């Protein structure tokens, strides 16, 4: 039995003095609308409407919550408040800002500034598809992450962790600002209670301790994700996920492909951020910022012949493995 997603509010619905223009996105937690106020100013409004716990008929305003899901629904609501509360305390250009919070239709709405532009993920994919040697220029990467880290530093100063930093949650506005969006603190609370909505981490960007859900999470957990984002901005693809890395870590190998293209320092920064051991990573955003803003002359180390051979060999081996897997998959199908 598949669950029907609650339907979003149709355009021109009035909520809390704002008029819905259209749906921008929908996630496990609810729906984000583009809306305008009476003066025509645009806002992004997030509606709390967890798809697994509530339903809403097409054209209806009030969501229905299944009685047996009510306690989880309320719990989620609390998390939604947490997200609002977290964001409300922060006023920084690199962190999405909450402008208003109101109740209507028996649920709650969070009004945020509407950002025009695209996510870093969109940019990475576009850049990657150009098939150039570099996905982004190194100077772009450095200044982009410097901006992101300024925002993240404020977040950490407020004793919060984002816990879901990934290119899809870094927004690049049309006026070239980088903004952290979609605060995961909410999800964090929920996942502690278990069985909720969806995996609470994004493979590739989530540090190993996120999988363990223990108390070892800290600023370094977000820093791992930043490292993974930088990796993706260089490579065009997300890194292997943490469980894979714990089994067999190919990060250094993968990064060595970027030698000579990006500076040694930047590659080392990524390796530092993405250390599997939380204690081996930069322990604060500040220490990472310091490293990232080093204006030393960049040195580039070309690959040695031996390394090139190994890389090639690695490609051959993985290709062979893939072919072998395909072959055996075919074989099973033909049985």
């Amino acid at each position, binding site marked *: 039995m598949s669950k029907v997603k609650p339907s979003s509010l149709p355009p021109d619905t009035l909520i809390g003095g704002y008029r819905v223009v259209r749906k921008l996105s929908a996630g496990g937690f609810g729906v984000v609308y583009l809306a305008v106020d009476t003066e025509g100013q645009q806002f992004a409004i997030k509606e709390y409407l967890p798809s697994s716990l509530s339903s809403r008929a097409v054209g209806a305003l009030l969501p229905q919550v299944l009685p047996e899901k*009510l*306690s*989880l629904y*309320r*719990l989620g*609501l*609390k998390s939604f*408040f947490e997200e*609002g*509360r977290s964001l*409300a*305390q*922060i*006023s920084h250009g690199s962190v999405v800002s*909450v*402008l*208003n*919070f*109101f*109740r209507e239709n028996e649920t*709650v709405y969070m009004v945020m500034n509407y950002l025009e532009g695209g996510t870093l993920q969109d940019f990475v994919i576009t850049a990657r598809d150009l098939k150039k040697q570099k996905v982004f220029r190194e100077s772009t990467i450095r200044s982009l992450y410097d901006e992101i880290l300024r925002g993240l530093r404020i977040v950490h100063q407020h004793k919060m962790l984002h816990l879901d930093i990934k290119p899809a949650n870094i927004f690049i506005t049309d006026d070239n600002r980088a903004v952290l969006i979609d605060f995961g603190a909410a999800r964090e609370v929920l996942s502690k209670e278990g069985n909720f909505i969806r995996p609470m981490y994004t493979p590739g960007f989530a540090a190993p301790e996120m999988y363990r859900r223990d108390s070892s999470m800290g600023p370094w957990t977000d820093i791992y994700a930043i490292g993974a984002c930088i990796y993706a901005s260089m490579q065009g693809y997300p890194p292997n996920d943490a469980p894979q890395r714990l089994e067999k870590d190919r990060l250094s190998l993968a990064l060595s492909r970027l030698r000579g293209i990006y500076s040694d320092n930047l590659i080392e920064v990524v390796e530092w951020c993405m250390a599997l051991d939380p204690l081996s990573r930069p322990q604060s955003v500040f220490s990472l910022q310091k490293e990232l803003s080093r204006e030393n002359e960049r040195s580039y180390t070309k690959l040695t012949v031996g390394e090139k051979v190994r890389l090639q060999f690695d490609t051959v081996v993985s290709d062979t493995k893939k072919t072998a897997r395909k072959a055996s998959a075919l074989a099973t199908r033909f049985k």
Partner: protein
Amino acid sequence: MKFSVFQLSRIGGRQNNEDRMGYCYTRESGLFVLADGMGGHPQGEVAAQLALETVSALYQKEAKPILRDPAQFLSNALLAAHLQINRYATRKAMLDTPRTTLVAAVVQGNSATCVHCGDSRLYLVREGQLLMRTRDHSFIEQRNAGLTRIEHLNRNILFSCLGSTAKPVFDLTGPIKLMQGDKLLLCSDGLWGSLSDDEIVLQLAGKPVSDAVPDMVESALRVAGDTSDNVTVLAIEWETPDIFESSQVIIADSMLDGEFASTIQTGLLDTKTDDLDEASIERSIAEINEAIRRSGTKKV
């Protein structure tokens, strides 16, 4: 606003401590609460805790930084706590509801206002004399007041409390103008069941609250012996002239607008239960908007 405060709760000879106490304050107002979860019904400590949390949550919402009408606030808060306990019982599908007494005092603008329901008491002592104390909602106190003429009465039987199916009967006292050095004491029946009013007044008058409270609790426990009830006492001295070293002296004047301090842990409402009632939803939204306003003004 300046006051000394000291609170202490001891389990006595019981299995659980079903008493709860706490205080919170803003720059210009203070709230002091004590609840005694009732035996004979399930989960007295939950009822007491819910009562404290509800009252303090409402206080935090409305004391900005003073309550507009302390008497109105106290009666609303008491009824909200009562509803909250009933709601809890309904949600847990309990056959019998948890129950509790409640005594709460608000001090602001040099006066004290108090509400109470059940047999937890408030004493007000001025210059060594008992200025007033609350009358319990028990049959024995009714008889003492000449209202009932039944002979053998158990002091423990109350005709009103929070959490029962009947709407609670409660009394408001005050506002009473406070003078420098006045002492207010909130206590559960564990204290007054063992010590007479005179003893309580004597102890309270002679020492700073930080000494008087532990001494009183200690003597009550000693008098009651091995089977002592929980003993809980919270006392404040108004506009303390001297700084007593071991008591908590609160000088609230230095607090910022909108600042709020509380000793009441909101464990129950927040983690154990998923109970976000209307009031707490409204409160959360108000808090968020307040935070937005604050961080917004910072930016400008």
